[in-house]
Every structure is written in structure tokens, then in C-alpha cells.
């Protein structure tokens, strides 16, 4: 048992060491969260003082087509890109986990592209999708597909962005691979001895053991795709015809181009609530469907 004096000293040391984070948390997280809640009830253009307007921003948002469109665009991207990326990265992780030659090489080649993100990646794919001299249309021409104006055609721009997102699946693949390699060999052997086929073993042993990894990636993937900005800013500027007008791009335009900080703050808060709810729901679902080896932790 520690003496009171000792534990008080320990307490002081604890707060001493976490103080940088605590200050940062208050200044760069807590204050902004509360401030944007306040701004969301005001009309604010940075020059004049914020003017309180109650729920004005929110009622305006719900009538704003651009707002609903940005949600539609973001959800479309999310619901196609995230599950497909997850699925593909799992498949490739399983393939690489086989006893095949050049495993290390495949692994590196697959996940190296995921390191190239941000504007470099956006510019590269903008060029790959160039209608006249780009690689992608050239590749499609071998299959008899005519010229597609990827980023100039509202029917294709989103698909181009989704295809682009697959390029970054190497990171997810690596996480699945680590998960697969963490599965105890004795479980797989036991299943084999019990006469379970490959598919059966995968479904009843491998997949449940991977479910925490799956869940983790799903949350990260959803939250990331709610925040797509770089592609819209660099390549499409939300176009053509608002078909890639992502939610965060909408916040950016309203705050930093239209100088409507209050209105944009309302959107920011809706994003915050959406992220919180999604995380919460997935966590709840996981209690039912996710298998944690050795009982439930936490």
C-alpha cells in the first residue's frame, strides 16, 4: 500500500507529464468543438461580431439542395469504395498468405502505392484518367471501349475516384495479413483434422478470428471517406455538375470561400455527430458479431 504522500506525489507527476496533451486538448480540441457549436447558432463572417440566430443555420441547411447533394455524393462514395476496398484487401491478403513464390515482392508492390497519397496521388490519377493521352483509356481501348471523359463527365467522375481509391488498398491488406498471420496454427490444424474443408475453415475459423481487424478497418475506412477533400480540391473542384461535391469540400467552400463560418460550423457539427453515431453503432454491433479471442476485453 502506498502512503498518501507518495500517491499525491505520483498524482502530481502524472499531471506534470500529461500537461502538454491536456493543454493541447483544451486549446485544439475541446475549445474548437464547443466554439463551433456556438458559431453554428450564429451568422459569422469574421469581420463583424457573430450574430445569434438560433437554429437559423440548421433550418436553412435542411432546405439547402447543395447540402443534401454533398451528403448523397459522400455516401455514394463511402458505400461503394469502403466495402469494396475492404473486400479486395482481404482477398489479396489471403492470396499473399499462401505458400507462393515472391511473396515479399508482391506484398511490397501492393502496399507501396498506398504510401503515395494526397496531392501526388491525385495528380497522378488525374493524368492516368486523361481522356486523350492517359493510361486508363489506352488500357480500355484493348477491350474495345471508346474514349471516356472521366473527370469531365458527371456519370464517370465518381467512378474514377472510386477506382483511384483501390490503389490505396495495400495498407488494409497489410493489416489483414498481420491478422491472418496471428491466427494460431493449431486452430487451423484442428479444423482440418475435424474434416473441415478450406472454405468451411475460412468461414468458421479464420473469419471470426479476423472480425476485430475487420471492424477496426471498417470504422477507419468510413470515417476517412466521410472526410474526402484532396481529390475534390485537386481534381474535380466538386464537378462536373456537382457530382463530386463532397461533404467536407462543401464545408470548405462555405467557410473559406463564402465566408459563412456559422453556416459551415453547423455542417461541421453534423459531421461530428454522424461520426460519433457511426462509431457507436459499429461498436454496439460488434458486441454481437465480433469474436474476441479469450473472452471480451474492456
Amino acid at each position, binding site marked *: 500500500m502506498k502512503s498518501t504522500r507518495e500517491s499525491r506525489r*505520483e*498524482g502530481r*507527476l*502524472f499531471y506534470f*507529464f500529461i500537461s*502538454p496533451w*491536456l493543454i*493541447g*486538448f483544451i*486549446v*485544439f*480540441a475541446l475549445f*474548437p*468543438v464547443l*466554439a*463551433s457549436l456556438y458559431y453554428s447558432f450564429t451568422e459569422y463572417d469574421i469581420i463583424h461580431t457573430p450574430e445569434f440566430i438560433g437554429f437559423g443555420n440548421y433550418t436553412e441547411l435542411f432546405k439547402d439542395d447543395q447540402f443534401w447533394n454533398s451528403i448523397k455524393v459522400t455516401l455514394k462514395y463511402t458505400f461503394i469504395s469502403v466495402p469494396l476496398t475492404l473486400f479486395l484487401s482481404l482477398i*489479396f491478403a489471403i*492470396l499473399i498468405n*499462401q505458400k*507462393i513464390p515472391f511473396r515479399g515482392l508482391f506484398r511490397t*508492390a501492393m502496399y*507501396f502505392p498506398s*504510401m*503515395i497519397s*494526397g*496531392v*501526388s496521388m*491525385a*495528380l*497522378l490519377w488525374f*493524368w*492516368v484518367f486523361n481522356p*486523350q*493521352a492517359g*493510361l486508363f483509356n*489506352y488500357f480500355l*481501348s484493348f477491350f474495345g471501349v471508346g474514349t471516356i471523359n472521366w473527370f469531365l463527365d458527371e456519370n464517370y467522375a465518381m467512378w474514377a475516384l472510386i477506382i483511384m481509391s483501390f*490503389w490505396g488498398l495495400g*495498407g488494409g491488406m*497489410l493489416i489483414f495479413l*498481420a491478422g491472418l498471420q496471428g491466427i494460431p*496454427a493449431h486452430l487451423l490444424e484442428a479444423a*482440418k483434422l475435424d474434416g473441415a474443408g*478450406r472454405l468451411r475453415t475460412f468461414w468458421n475459423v479464420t473469419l471470426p478470428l479476423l472480425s476485430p481487424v475487420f471492424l477496426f478497418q471498417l470504422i477507419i475506412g468510413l*470515417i476517412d471517406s*466521410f*472526410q474526402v*477533400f484532396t481529390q475534390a*480540391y*485537386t481534381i474535380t473542384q466538386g464537378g462536373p455538375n456537382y457530382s463530386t461535391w463532397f461533404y*467536407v469540400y462543401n464545408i*470548405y467552400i462555405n467557410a*473559406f470561400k463564402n465566408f459563412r*463560418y456559422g453556416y*459551415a460550423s453547423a455542417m*461541421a457539427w453534423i*459531421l*461530428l455527430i454522424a*461520426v460519433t453515431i457511426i*462509431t457507436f453503432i459499429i461498436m454496439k454491433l460488434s458486441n454481437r458479431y465480433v469474436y474476441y479471442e479469450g473472452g471480451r476485453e474492456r
Partner: protein
Amino acid sequence: MSNLALTKQLPVKPKKARAEMAQIIGFLILLLVTVAMIMPLWFMLSTSLKTTKEMLAYPPSFIPDHFAWGNFKELFINTDIKFGRQYMNSLIVGVATVIGTVFSSSFVAFGFARYRAKGSTFFFMLVLSTLMLPYPAIMIPQFLLFTKLGLHDSLLPLILPSFFASAYMIFLLKQFFTTLPNELYDAGRIDGCREIRLYWSLTLPLSGPVLATVAIFSFIWSWNDLLAPVLYLDSQENFTLPIGMAAMLSSKFRIAPWNLMMAASLLSVLPIVVLFAIAQRRFVQGIVLTGIK
């Protein structure tokens, strides 16, 4: 692995043949996918060395007719682009962010790992809860704050927050610090070490690899970040590389200078490739532990 030999004898012949077939198919799929993944990289490399005329030619050539090394020179001498300056800015922000993140996060993680106090669990939950906090949800008040401090159009708003520890890195480092044995610290205390020295002279030297992971990832995040720089930076001299490169698209060129942009992309990827080459294992570890690519 004594029963490995046993299981090897078990499968009957046709099953084995089918398994081999599946492996060959898997291999071929991987081969195709790998080629598809590498292709764009190759396209980037070859375009960066093409003349404007060859860049626009159809079908695209995979190896330039003659290597236009001048593209790389052009990036640095063309005064409309200010590539060198922006590269420098990105390096400054990246290195400063690494220094800030490594020291502040390890300092805080040390506190969480070594000391118990009233509220320590609560505060750690608070750290974890900020992992999911989306930057766009807090960027407006942060922007207004820094603008009021007169830091608009400067690199400081991109650097300063890193000196107040990052939630991901606290989490990562705390996991590691708790594995260090208590006896080590007791011995240190008996030798008369003060607590701050237990952090500085005992913990940090033992944590080289995990600190390297933290450094690499904070550098990459900072290096690739676009949204925060876009909010704060107005003048071309102060742009970081990502904005500078995005701005090349809309700049004064008659034809979009894809060869220059690919050369710029290539150079901007260079630090990451170098880091990757010298510390591939840290990359893998970091991705697996943080889930962030």
C-alpha cells in the same frame, strides 16, 4: 511443429492437386494485380521524363524516346512555380512536426504509462475519444484562433499543434512503455534519478524503434496534408508542396504541364521512398499498429 509432418501425409492426391491449382490461380491473380498497381507508378516516372510533345502522344509510350531531364531543372528555375521554395517549406513543416510529435507524445505517453492518479483512466479515455475526432469538425475555430493570433499565411499553425502530442502516438507509445519492466525504474530511482531523467535518459534510449515509427508516420501525415495548409497559406512563397503542386494545374501554362507535374510528384514522393527503403519494417509495424496508411 512436430505434427506438421503428420498433417502433410494426410491429404489424398486429388485434393492436393486442387490445392496446387488454387495456388497457381492465386499466383496469377496476384501477378496481374501487382502489374496493375505498379503501372501508374511507371507512368508517373516515364511521363516525368517526356517532352511536352511526347507526353501528349497517343498511344502513350512507356519509355521516353529521349530523356527530357530538363523537366526536373525546369521545376527549380521556373519562377512561376517556386517549387524549390515550397519543397523547403514542406521539409521545414515536416521536420518540425516530427520533433514536436516525438518529444511531446513520448512525454505524455510516459505519464500515462508510469503513473496512476485520480482521473488517469478518464483522461486516457479522453485521449482515445479524440482519435475519431474529424479535423473538418474543428478546423473553423482553429482557423479563427490562429488568424486572430496573426499567424495567417505562416507555417506556424501547421507546426504548433504537433508540440501538444498526438492521440495516435500517445496510444502507440503508451502501449510500448508499459512493457518496460518496473525493476528498471526502481533501479533508476535507487541510483538517484529524478523522474524527468527516468523519461529522458532511461525510457527514450530504450524506445528507438517505436520512436522511429512515430517519427516516420508523423512526417508522412504532415508531408501529405492538404486541408490545413489550404486554410492557412495564401501566398505562393509560403505554400507547402501539396498546394503548390495542385496550383500548377491552374497556373499560367497553356497546356497542363503533366510532365512537370509528374516530375514534381516524383520528387515529392522521394522522401517517403527513402524512408521506406531505410525503415521498411517500421512502416509495416506502424501500419499494422495504427491502422493508418
